[in-house]
């Protein structure tokens, strides 16, 4: 049986992984997309990490304790070293966390890390982190792949991180082609690594990537295109594991113009047929979303929170009339041509909004142009994609009210802000649920953004690859944490 890891057979433990782009040099704390996460998982290590069940497990930390919602203690494994043999101590952890907490360093986890008040080390292997305010989700930030521990001399915003404490090290790389990795001899848990070698090959084009898997050139690929799902599913010996993960949403420039009016934004939330968007932009490989996306089974994901809106053009028209636009209005939607799902979403939205009287014109350029315009607030409404940095609803704080530039929407609602903070900092779960419920009711009538669909993020691999599982939801991108620990069967 293919499923059995044949212990008698001597299968070469080599994984060839076709990935969607070339990894960039690793920078401390920086979000570098899914390929960045992969490299973090392979070469780096944090105190904690997400496992394939979507739970937080220990990594460099041997154990941790959530003393209360604002105090956490970690104990490191004994005799930890970086791949070059340098010892890794609690001091390194402290230094790294402080670096991540500094907004000037653009760390991805800055939202959580900046809540750190003090870090005290106790010897080489334990430390205590005290937060300025309650954050029960702090561990999610610590488990984020970008929160890996960096050697002192490489811990600066302009340095490239070359040495980590991860399970693999780079043996060889050819620019534009691929790289080879071999197990890190100094890894703290060498037994967990079965693979003798990992070969990464870069396939920018999604179809080419799929073809490479189908032709047997590679064993596994990331991020297959939605329109290739069928082809992969029907291919013998190939497993496609796709789960709903990143969001596509409409965000508004709430500073001026019609979209400054909450009623108009609410109208939009009712006017867009999410199924239409899903089929148009992702060949149906996306789940419609009528409220903020929350991890399945989470206590905050109430029925109400998942259906704040519905597809109801009539209601949308009424809202528009109420807002003073009975005949609708003209506006421009900013999107990107480089990512077809952005543009196709915009086209679908354009069609839906036309039916309620809002005439959208597309402003579609490449991604840098989009970033520039988004940053400068040079748009009325735009398509935005992304995944929450942590699965818990506190991620919404930075989504709705980021002070950072380009998600800035000029949206302000003091009540909502407070409700979200309450949701995070309240002591008991009931209080938190209640606070978030309050927040969602505000979102229902004063939407900071309109989430449209949750797109499927997939991984496809030969059925000889053992040990991989795609975690649903935002954590899907962290599924690659499992890559170093896979094995190959006969």
């Amino acid at each position, binding site marked *: 049986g293919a499923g059995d890891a044949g212990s008698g057979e001597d299968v070469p433990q080599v994984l060839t992984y076709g990935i969607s782009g070339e990894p960039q040099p690793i920078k401390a704390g920086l979000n570098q997309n899914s390929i960045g996460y992969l490299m973090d998982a392979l070469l780096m290590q944090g105190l904690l990490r997400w496992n394939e069940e979507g739970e937080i497990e220990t990594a460099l930390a041997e154990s941790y304790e959530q003393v209360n919602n604002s105090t956490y203690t970690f104990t490191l494994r004994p005799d930890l070293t970086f791949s070059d043999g340098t010892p890794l101590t609690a001091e390194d952890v402290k230094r790294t966390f402080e670096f991540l907490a500094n907004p000037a360093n653009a760390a991805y986890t800055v939202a959580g890390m900046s809540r750190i008040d003090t870090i005290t080390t106790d010897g080489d292997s334990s430390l205590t982190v005290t937060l300025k305010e309650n954050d029960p989700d702090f561990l999610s930030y610590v488990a984020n792949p970008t929160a890996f521990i960096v050697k002192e001399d490489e811990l600066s915003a302009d340095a490239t991180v070359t040495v980590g404490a991860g399970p693999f090290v780079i043996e060889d790389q050819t*620019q534009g082609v691929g790289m080879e990795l071999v197990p890190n001899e100094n890894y703290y848990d060498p037994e967990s690594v079965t693979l003798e070698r990992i070969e990464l090959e870069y396939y920018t084009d999604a179809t*080419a990537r799929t073809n490479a898997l189908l032709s047997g050139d590679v064993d596994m690929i990331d991020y297959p295109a939605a329109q290739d799902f069928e082809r992969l599913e029907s291919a013998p010996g190939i497993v496609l594991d796709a789960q709903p993960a990143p969001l596509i949403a409409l965000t508004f420039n709430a500073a001026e113009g019609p979209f400054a009016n909450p009623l108009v934004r609410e109208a939009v939330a009712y006017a867009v047929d999410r199924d239409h968007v899903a089929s148009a932009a992702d060949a149906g490989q996306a789940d419609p979303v009528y409220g903020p996306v929350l991890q399945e089974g989470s206590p905050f994901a109430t029925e109400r929170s998942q259906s704040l809106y519905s597809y109801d053009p009539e209601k949308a028209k009424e809202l528009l009339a109420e807002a003073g636009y009975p005949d609708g209005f003209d506006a421009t939607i900013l999107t990107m041509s480089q990512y077809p799902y952005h543009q196709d979403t915009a086209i679908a939205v354009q069609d839906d909004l036309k039916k309620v009287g809002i005439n959208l014109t597309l402003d579609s350029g490449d991604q*840098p142009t989009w*970033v520039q315009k988004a940053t400068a607030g040079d748009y009325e409404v735009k398509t935005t994609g992304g995944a929450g940095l942590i699965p818990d609803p506190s991620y919404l704080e930075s989504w709705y009210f980021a002070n950072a530039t380009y998600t800035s929407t000029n949206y302000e609602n003091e009540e909502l802000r407070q409700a979200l903070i309450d949701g995070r900092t309240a002591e008991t779960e009931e209080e938190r649920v209640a606070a978030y419920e309050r927040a969602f009711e505000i979102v229902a009538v004063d939407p900071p953004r309109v989430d449209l669909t949750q797109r499927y993020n997939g991984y496809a691999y030969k059925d000889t690859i053992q040990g991989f599982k795609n975690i649903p939801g935002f954590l899907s991108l962290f599924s690659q944490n499992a890559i170093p620990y896979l094995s190959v069967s006969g």
Partner: protein
Amino acid sequence: MGLLLLGLTLIFFVIRTVPGDPAALLASGGGSGDASPEAIAQIREQLGLDQPLWAQYFGYLAGVVRGDFGTSFQFGTDVTPIILERLPKTLELVLGATLIGVTVGIILGVIAARRGGVVSTIITAMGSFAISIPVYVLGTVLVFAIALQLRWLPAGGYVGWEDPADHLRILILPCITLAVPFAAIVATITRSGLVETAQQDWVRTARSWGMSPNSVYGRHVLRNSLTAVLTIVGLEIGLMFGSTILVEQVYSYPGLSQLMIRSVEQRDYPIVQGVAIMAAAFFILVNILVDVLYGVLDPRARRR
């Protein structure tokens, strides 16, 4: 040389006119994360983008004179080795495609012109097909048929010269894909040149010597049409150098175009500039070669 300087200057300023901030992109991990204004400012300073434009320009020029094309924003390493790594790969692709394209194109053009009638129409039809089929589609179809169904050749990727057989096998499909429209263009131009030249008096003269029809065709019709073909070949080689992007994408071939597109998307100015200069130098080289060959092929075309 002056041309290169002009090209370099143009590209330097044009790329900076185009919207998009490399620092913002870098700070946000390619535009997917958030970045604080401080972070962006810090990166901008690191990249030297905070200096006035003219200072950047002269700094860059001074570097270029010393053979230093700067440091890539995205890779954080010197531009020169990055480009030199890819240059031979692209050259192989371009030369391979040229070889196939020119040979097949001229042969088809000659057949079309000599046989005329139905054959010519069929070749014209094939040519229209070849030039209008999107490279991407052609490439994908070839991959489906030859790599996935027949499994004769790999679907893409790259193998270095250390394994010459595999290296060549990898090259076949991308070269063919590039060569198909190229051959069609060469064939069309060849055919038109041939039918025009075949009417000239000197062709009759050569026939009157009792020269074999093939020689007459080769030496007095084809030879005289080659100038037009040469122009096209030169042009196409030059254009191909910068526009193999779709082929490189379909076959995941690590050529210069991929690098270029990626760098444009990242607003990685030093690489964009470097590749553009390289392409320009290559183009100018090809043009000089074409002009020299032109004079050789047709003495009347010599300037003096």
